[in-house]
């Protein structure tokens, strides 16, 4: 098509000499047509964000720069434009929506004024006309009470509201193209569904083109007209969303689609075992503020009277959005936090209301797999020592513990030689395997996994989940699996408890909850799963 809004031709983006590869983007040619949403999908390191930055002229010069190709926008090559001309296009004709709405807004300025500033810089409108326009924009993104909203500061808004303001700013000058770089990744699922809906609605209404960068095929299914799949700086497959999602041609795309966790719930084990972990009426309240001289304490009820039980050898997923108290629950179970009231029993033994020394005895039985594979391994310890640490503490001779660590590394699919290397030499997925090996080293009865795959790419996510599942069976472990993602919960756990603002609103077997959700919140979580219709249409793996 000749009247494409954006026409990228043979784009190369060079990386500095000391990085592990020469190019972040290698010979990418893409077009964005008027009134369409093009999704660029790729895992980390695919060069998808670099491409967005290259279009906006935001590459971190001088180390990273486009060394070949053209980016034609409305007939002009953006790579050869001067700073002034580029500035007029940025904001004016091309707008950008970032991943993290908090950092994209100025915390010291009311949001209305921030939108107003865009208009002031780029248009000749007078003050009353601008105010009317700001108001209209805020109404456009469906924020309640526009007048109050205009005077609010970013910190007074929720994440979803902030992202709406960012979208309003992007729309302020009626741009021809909006580049959205993972705009919903930092948001909760239900908010994500609303924002995706909003972007689609506004795109139709204003006739804008959107270049949407994401890692999530579910999001693609929700929003895209066309899709381009990227890996290591190259476009592997491009086509209409319906075609690529249903009949992917490139093997890599096929693998990615297959790795998307399905919504096929797992069935409960037939026999019922006695409970391993029992939680009764757990309450944990945080008291904020209130230093030496101030008396106004603010209470946050993180967990309010939660009761749960996990039978031996089974696994329970605790599903909730941010602020639901799921991490606080995990910390109470693992003994990193003390609950205010309520009981936690492991194998019938109370873990609450006991001293530090008695608590230490439970350390061996309950282990944790952490969320962030980069923060959870000590960068100054060798992998072997990290895994062997628990064993050494519990009295295994050092040499024997290191030997067991090697064995565990083999078990989680790594080379035993990895024991002599440092964590930074491994990728995110490999580090998470090391984290799992560490948790298993002391042969615990219960493993608490706090969002263990949320920091990983989809294909790696699938492998790690399968590994966890295998090992669980092999060791006869029970697991408390904490996640925000119903899809992930469905793949690994027989039972699900849905947590909302510190209260369990629904609890039962995964199959029952998926088939017949009782609570309104569960229903909205299920509806918010991105690309739900598409996922259900996939053949069960």
């Amino acid at each position, binding site marked *: 098509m000749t009247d494409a809004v954006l026409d990228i031709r043979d784009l190369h983006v060079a990386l500095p000499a*000391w*990085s592990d590869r020469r190019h972040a983007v290698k010979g990418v040619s893409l077009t964005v047509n008027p009134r369409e949403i093009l999704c660029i999908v790729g895992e980390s390191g695919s060069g998808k964000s670099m491409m967005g930055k290259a279009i906006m002229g935001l590459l*971190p010069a001088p*180390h990273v720069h486009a060394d070949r190709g053209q980016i034609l926008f409305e007939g002009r090559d953006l790579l050869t434009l001067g700073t002034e001309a580029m500035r007029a296009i940025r904001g004016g004709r091309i707008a950008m929506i970032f991943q993290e709405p908090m950092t994209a807004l100025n915390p010291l300025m009311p949001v209305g004024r921030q939108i107003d500033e865009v208009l002031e810089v780029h248009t000749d409108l007078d003050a009353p006309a601008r105010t009317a326009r700001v108001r209209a924009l805020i109404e456009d993104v469906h924020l309640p009470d526009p007048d109050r909203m205009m005077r609010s500061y970013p910190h007074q808004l929720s994440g979803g509201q902030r992202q709406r303001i960012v979208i309003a700013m992007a729309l302020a000058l009626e741009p021809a193209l909006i580049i959205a770089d993972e705009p919903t990744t930092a948001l909760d699922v239900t908010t994500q569904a609303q924002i995706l809906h909003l972007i689609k609605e506004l795109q139709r209404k204003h006739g804008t083109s959107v270049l949407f960068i994401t890692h999530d095929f579910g999001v693609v299914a929700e929003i895209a007209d066309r899709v381009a799949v990227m890996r290591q700086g190259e476009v592997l497959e491009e086509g209409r969303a319906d075609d690529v999602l249903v009949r992917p041609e490139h093997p890599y795309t096929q693998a990615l689609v297959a790795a998307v966790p399905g919504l096929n719930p797992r069935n409960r084990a037939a026999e019922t075992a006695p409970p391993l972990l029992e939680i009764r009426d757990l309450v944990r309240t945080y008291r904020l503020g209130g230093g030496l001289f101030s008396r106004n304490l603010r209470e946050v009820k993180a967990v309010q009277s939660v009761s749960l039980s996990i039978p031996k050898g089974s696994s329970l997923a605790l599903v909730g959005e941010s602020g639901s108290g799921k991490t606080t629950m995990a910390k109470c179970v*693992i*003994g*990193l936090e003390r609950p205010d009231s309520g009981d936690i029993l492991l194998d019938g033994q109370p873990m609450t209301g006991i001293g530090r020394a008695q608590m*230490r005895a439970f*350390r*061996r039985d*309950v*282990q*944790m797999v*952490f*969320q*962030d594979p980069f*923060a*959870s*391994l*000590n*960068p*100054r*310890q060798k992998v072997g020592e*990290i895994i062997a*640490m*628990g064993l050494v*503490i*519990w009295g295994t001779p050092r040499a024997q513990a290191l030997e067991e660590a090697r064995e565990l590394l083999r078990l989680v699919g790594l080379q035993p030689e990895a024991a002599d290397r440092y964590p930074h030499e491994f990728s995110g997925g490999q580090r998470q395997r090391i*984290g799992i090996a*560490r948790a298993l080293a*002391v042969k615990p009865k219960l493993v608490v996994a706090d969002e263990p795959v949320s920091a990983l790419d989809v294909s790696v996510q699938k492998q790690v989940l399968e590994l966890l599942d295998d090992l669980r069976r092999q060791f006869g472990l029970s697991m408390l699996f904490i996640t925000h993602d119903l899809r992930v919960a469905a793949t690994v756990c027989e039972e699900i408890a849905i947590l909302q603002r510190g209260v369990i609103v629904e609890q039962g077997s995964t199959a029952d909850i998926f088939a017949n959700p009782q609570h309104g919140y569960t229903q909205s979580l299920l509806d918010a799963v991105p690309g739900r219709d598409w996922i259900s249409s996939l053949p069960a793996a």
Partner: protein
Amino acid sequence: MKSFNARFYGNPRVYLGLVWLALVLIAALFAGVLAPRDPFAIVGQPFLPPGSEGFLLGTDSLGRDVLAGLIHGARTTLMIAVLSTVAAIAFGTVLGALAGYYGGIVDDILMRLTEFFQTIPWFLFAIVLVAILSPSAMNLVIAIAVVSWPPIARVVRAEVMAVKAREFVQAAVVAGQRDMGILFGQILPNTLSPLIVTGSLMVATAILIESALSFLGLGSPGQMSWGFQIGAGRSFLRDAWWLVTVPGIVILLTVLAINLIGEGLNDALNPRLADL
């Protein structure tokens, strides 16, 4: 990402600093070989200018060899500076680590103590300490360490608080490691970079304090030092300029060299600041 070595040794300023420091270190280590005679011995005419026969940097008011004094002074000055820095780091690290790790009331008490030491004018405090304890090499080390540890404690405390929140520390707690094991095995090794940088710069400050105290006559008696040389030569500034100027330049270059190395360490250990 370039390696630490490439970033550190590839820096020309670090190179200059290392060359000068190596010269000073050689002088300090081999003082007895390079200048075998007692630096206090009267070996020639007084007030011989630099370049005189047999005395490269001249002689002082009593006919002592200035170069020999510098070589022996390097030993005294460096020893006192390094020992006092090590003592300050050891004490400051333990205090800062305990305050940062335990927080709450422990933190309050230890930090108020640190602030108490920080509010006293440090040079006057050092003078008072040496005056009370009587001047000796050991007491100089104590005085300098006592006035230098608070910044170390603050740096370590801040780092420990930051590292403590990382997940691998929670993993160690969950594994059942004891508090001291976690603090010294998991947390402190991860606070080394800022500690090395602060410590290396502190050696330079310690040299300055030692020289200043010696200049005031509170130095270690019977041991030649750079500050003592300046102090002894100050009354003859207009007649024999080299007595003050030469040791002064040596102190300047040494402090500068250590600062260059310290900054090079900082750039190499915190590459994000250097690259952007």
